């Protein structure tokens, strides 16, 4: 969480300084749920389809920070060599598929990865997780993806961040059901709901859902209620978010809540917290510096191949 918040703050600064081309999408307010999910998953073993507010989950899952800074800063050494940027990066073979921008589309991809593991006899003890927001619940891909996971009884954990806004559209223009978690009944999957601003509650509910999926309980829908504490991207000042909502319990910052919870429980000390933060700052500084020193993609060096099979390339 701390690493993600520190990294994303730096990325936002770099964007405002004009050092990042394209969008910057950050997840303040969602670190508690995202990192909780990522910390329940094992790199190279489980699957995690991170979405745009999942730096917390990516870091906790095991994504190297350099993958993030290289992607944002356009290093040719990045995972997609500059062919795609920012949060579209992925390491599919490690279990981190590369998201496309079309919401809900990754749910069936995760399901397919799990189905393959089943066909290969390698599904035992594996979980596949996908992140979505309230906006994605309105898409056909969401419906098809969750339904097919339920039909196949796959170990899918769908983490739904109900963060009150899809870009600028509030939830009352997005769905009409009383509570998104009720949809679990319609899909025949298990549903869970949690206050996403509460770190310890999030960790408990999400880890239980992951365990249920891991032990054969089929797809799990986890709805986390919270408020997006940023714009849709850093280009967006989110002026449409009402003050009253920001000052409501939904508007709590999960970082502050989490720090206080851990301090009050005596699980950490203020010194430890301070040292984690300074370690994170150093790590971020190093990852940014490394990526900034690396070459940008060169259109004359890129092979521009869209086919893996070289014989398919046309000379046009």
């Amino acid at each position, binding site marked *: 969480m701390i690493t993600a918040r520190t990294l994303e703050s730096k990325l936002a600064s770099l964007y405002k300084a004009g050092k990042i081309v394209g969008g910057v999408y950050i997840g303040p307010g969602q670190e508690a749920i995202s990192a909780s999910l990522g910390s329940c998953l094992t790199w190279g073993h489980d699957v995690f389809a991170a979405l745009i507010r999942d730096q917390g989950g990516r870091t906790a899952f095991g994504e190297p920070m350099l993958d993030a800074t290289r992607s944002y800063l356009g290093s040719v050494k990045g995972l997609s060599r500059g062919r795609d940027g920012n949060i579209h990066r992925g390491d599919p073979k490690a279990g981190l598929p590369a998201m496309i921008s079309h919401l809900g589309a990754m749910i*069936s991809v995760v*399901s397919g990865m799990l189905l*393959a593991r089943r066909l290969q006899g390698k599904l035992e003890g594996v979980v596949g997780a996908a992140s979505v927001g309230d906006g994605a619940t309105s898409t056909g891909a969401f419906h*098809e993806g969750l*339904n097919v996971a339920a039909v196949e009884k796959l170990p899918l954990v769908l983490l739904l961040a109900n963060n009150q806004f899809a870009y600028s559209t509030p939830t009352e223009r997005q769905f009409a059901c009383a509570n998104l978690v009720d949809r679990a009944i319609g899909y025949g999957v298990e549903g869970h709901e949690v206050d996403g601003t509460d770190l310890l509650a999030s960790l408990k509910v999400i880890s239980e859902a992951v365990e249920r999926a891991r032990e054969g309980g089929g797809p799990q829908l986890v709805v986390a209620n919270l408020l997006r504490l940023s714009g849709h991207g850093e280009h967006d000042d989110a002026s449409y978010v009402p003050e009253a909502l920001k000052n409501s319990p939904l508007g709590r910052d999960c970082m502050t809540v989490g720090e206080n919870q851990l301090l009050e429980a005596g699980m950490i000390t203020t010194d430890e917290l301070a040292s984690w933060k300074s370690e994170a700052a150093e790590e971020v500084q190093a990852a940014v510096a490394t990526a900034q020193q690396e070459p940008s993609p060169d259109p004359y060096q890129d092979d521009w191949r*869209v086919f*893996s*099979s070289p014989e398919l390339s046309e000379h046009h």
Partner: protein
Amino acid sequence: MGEVTYIDAIREAQHDVLQDDERVFIYGQDVGNFGGAFKATKGLKELFPDRVLDSPISEDAMIGMAVGAAIEGMRPIIEMQFADFSSVAFNQIVNQAATHFFRTGVPIPITVRLPSGGTPGSGPFHSQMMESIYAYYPGLVIVTPATVADAYWMLVDSIALDDPVLYCEHKFLYRWLKADSMKGDDRLPIGQARIVRAGKHATVVAYSAMVHEALRAADSLSEEGWEIEVVDLRSVKPLDTDTVIASVARTGRLLAVGEAFPWGGVTAEVVSRVASEGFHLLDAPPQRLNARDTPVPYHPNLWEAHRPTLESISAAIRNLLRL
């Protein structure tokens, strides 16, 4: 003509790859015990119970699942019940599958079978030709087999490719087209066109079921002394421009025939390439003949007048020979 049909070849190719390669599985609507809407997977569920799976009516998720399985090293075959329904899966095909290798370096070896084209009475939503739509997008291979042996080998080769393939199989050919042998004796790689009839007065470039209409037209014109060369593209992407240009170099005249809607598309691409790369070879303006620019009509009388036929192709060739 023998007794092996085009759909027999499709079924047999799937059987053979399922048997030879444990990474292959079939996923689609009604493909299991029912054997598929056109019986292209008949009996396969019994032979390979774990690898022939019925899907819900979820075309988007079917392709998403296939992409995910391909990331994990499988080689899924997706049967779209009708090519027309792949429009529901458009996003997953063109944004997920087509871009994946370019973006991540991880190839997506999926084969999407698209039962394509018109048959009498099928109407607007069970008759479409989708090859031009998908050919527009970088990263997709589009094949359009027109013979029994091509139906067999191009399906085997599509599944063996590391890249996503849209295998456009023509429903009219399923049981109408027969051959003595399933595998033939003229296997060509994907990306290579075939000259199916040699000639010297004009070149007709066609693909899928239109190859047979073009051959009938060439037969009828031969009675008048015209020797028409017919090129079967076999795959529309990659498009074998070299074979087309070489043919036009011999004949000086080009007619490109397709069953798809007329705006843009494969025939426009063929004409465009010949015009830009082989303009000096042309003795007449290159011509195109496509379906009409309306939805595919239901009634056989209207349908016959919607798509290119023996008569309209013959008329187009006669016109070309006069230009």
